[in-house]
């Protein structure tokens, strides 16, 4: 019986290992395929590809900067909106709410993450865009229009709409991770603070301090998700490769460019440029997610030590 056991063990382990290794193979294959297909534009444009400001397939001029700009700005703006709210929700759920309230509210926040991207896009086109066009836009432009970020034409389609939708989509992720991280902080920390006469809020600040790198990780994770978001963004951002200071003006992101134009690239160089810009997106999300993971892992390590 020991013999069959050993053979069975080997086969079992190998089968499982193949399955697990497939993950490595998938990522490696994606990277290799994209690199190979991008070689023509890499050879032709080099690093200038990343800094070129004009994207003109007809003239074979390919500069990725407007899309990198759009991706970065929409993501950072969405973080600006989402992080305070997410922190607030996480603090509410962990530190303040009674268990009976925390569960349904936590559940609702998680449901927000389950709603598909295209549904957010649909809602963005028909609900959010008119609200921005008819209410938020005129109010902001009327009062603060002298600021460049509130200039431009208010159409309801543009950077701000995309950022708000993105903020809604990344809030559940940030909340979930911050919540886990806050729950991981040992209660002894809170008890010590209370013993010294701190208010609930002051205690919370101490707990936040303990969880700081984990919170940073959550934020970076939200950033990673926002960078890669495709459908909701492409439906409300306006497909315009411009880098305008105004939040109301249309823009474009890498993912949105790929969604709109990948199917029609007949020229080798055009296809190569699209895949290269996709490769940029791939690498950026890879690095951002890796960084987030490291930050979050460092918290759990510190908690184990404490």
């Amino acid at each position, binding site marked *: 019986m020991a013999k069959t056991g050993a053979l069975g063990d080997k086969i079992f382990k190998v089968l499982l290992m193949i399955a697990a290794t497939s993950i490595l193979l998938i990522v490696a294959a994606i990277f290799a395929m994209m690199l190979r297909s991008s070689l023509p534009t890499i050879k032709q444009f080099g690093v200038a590809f990343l800094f070129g400001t*004009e994207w003109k397939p007809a003239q074979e*001029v390919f500069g990725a900067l407007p899309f990198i700009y759009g991706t970065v700005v929409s993501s950072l703006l969405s973080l600006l909106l989402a992080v305070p709210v997410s922190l607030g929700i996480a603090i509410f759920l962990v530190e303040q709410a009674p268990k009976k309230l925390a569960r349904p509210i936590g559940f609702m926040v998680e449901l927000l993450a389950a709603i598909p991207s295209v549904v957010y896009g649909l809602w963005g086109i028909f609900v959010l865009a008119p609200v921005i066009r008819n209410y938020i836009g005129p109010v902001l432009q009327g009062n603060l229009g002298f600021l460049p970020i509130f200039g431009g034409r208010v*159409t309801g389609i543009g950077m701000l709409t995309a950022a708000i939708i993105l903020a809604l989509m990344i809030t559940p992720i940030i909340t979930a991770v911050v919540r886990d991280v806050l729950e991981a902080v040992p209660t002894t920390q809170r008890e010590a603070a209370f013993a010294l006469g701190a208010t609930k809020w002051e205690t919370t600040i101490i707990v936040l301090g303990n969880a700081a790198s984990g919170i940073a990780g959550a934020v970076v994770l939200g950033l990673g998700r926002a960078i890669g978001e495709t459908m909701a963004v492409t439906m409300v951002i*306006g497909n*315009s490769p411009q880098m305008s200071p105004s939040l109301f003006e*249309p823009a474009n992101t890498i993912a949105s460019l790929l969604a709109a*134009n990948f199917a029609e*690239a*007949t020229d080798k160089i055009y296809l190569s440029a699209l895949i290269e810009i996709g490769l940029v997106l791939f690498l950026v999300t890879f690095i951002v997610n890796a960084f987030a993971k490291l930050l979050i892992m460092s918290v759990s390590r510190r908690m184990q030590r404490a």
Partner: protein
Amino acid sequence: MILKNLYITLFITAAVLFSFGCSGQKLGETNDGGDTGGTIRLQGSGSTFAKPMYEKWANEYGKLHPNVKIDYQGTGSGAGQKALLSKTSDFGASDDPMSDEDLAKGESPILHIPTVLGAVVLTYNLKDVKEPLRLTPETIADIYLGKIKKWNDPKLKADNPNTALPDADILPIYRADSSGTSAVFTDFLTKTNAEWKEKIGMNKQPSWITGVGIGAKGNDGVMGQVTQTPNAIGYVELTFAKANDLTTAQIKNRSGEFVAATPESVSAAVAETVAQMPDDLRIQITDTAAKNGYPIASYTYILVYKDQTNTAAGKALADFLWWALHDGNSFVEDLHYVPLPAGILSKVELKINSMTGGGKVLRQQ
């Protein structure tokens, strides 16, 4: 034990799925290879300009021949050309004829089959303006170059003295994807406006002035943006504007007349080009010399390989094209397209009859 059962169920499901999952059909092939019975599936993709027409034709043809399923996807003329070249579609559809360069990429010769004529109209979302606006090549070019920024610009007012134009920003909508409609539109502007010719020129994917407006995907997308956004203007095929009840502009043609897009004005525009139609049927007919001709009219094409690798599918395709150009005519006008002029129809018939499969001509003469 739950998991064991789960695994078994999954495995059986997967096995069942895979065994049924492959119909064994090559693109367009019948199940049994015979010429009676068996479903033939034809995949077409491309132009959104012609999408309502092809969807209607496919639907009606399907009622007459239930075993022929024609699946048309509006992905844009550029994508349609690519799909044909990479053979992921049985036929492509494009309003802009393929360039020599792209034709050379095909494994075997490609035929351009004109199907109907359509008009690219300028449609706009101005609630309070009920009458059609009058636009000239200069004003259109200036709007899309970003030089005319407001509806009550003096240049627009000069052409429309009796219309109250609002003091609002114009929002031009353009095609972000590779589009035959864009090609026709820019072809018109390139022929009629020197500044446009110099700065942007004619292309399926023009390099729009940065920041001039919003990009949308497909005729549907442009029309959708225009209907959703007040003060927007976009260029679409006439059928889309009609279906959404939005007014379209009257365009000044070469003779100085402000012409609306109607079957008559499109027919007038094409009539005088019939004699100039080249053998391969690739032509742009914008900027007509006809006095009452609409200046932004265009043929739209179905692209097929002359030599069909699959005989059964090729015959079905040829038969469908024949039907579309003859019996299918009865559906053309309801959708606001214009049938091919008689002089062209005979040339197209020759093209369809020249399609071969397995060395033999596909259609029985």
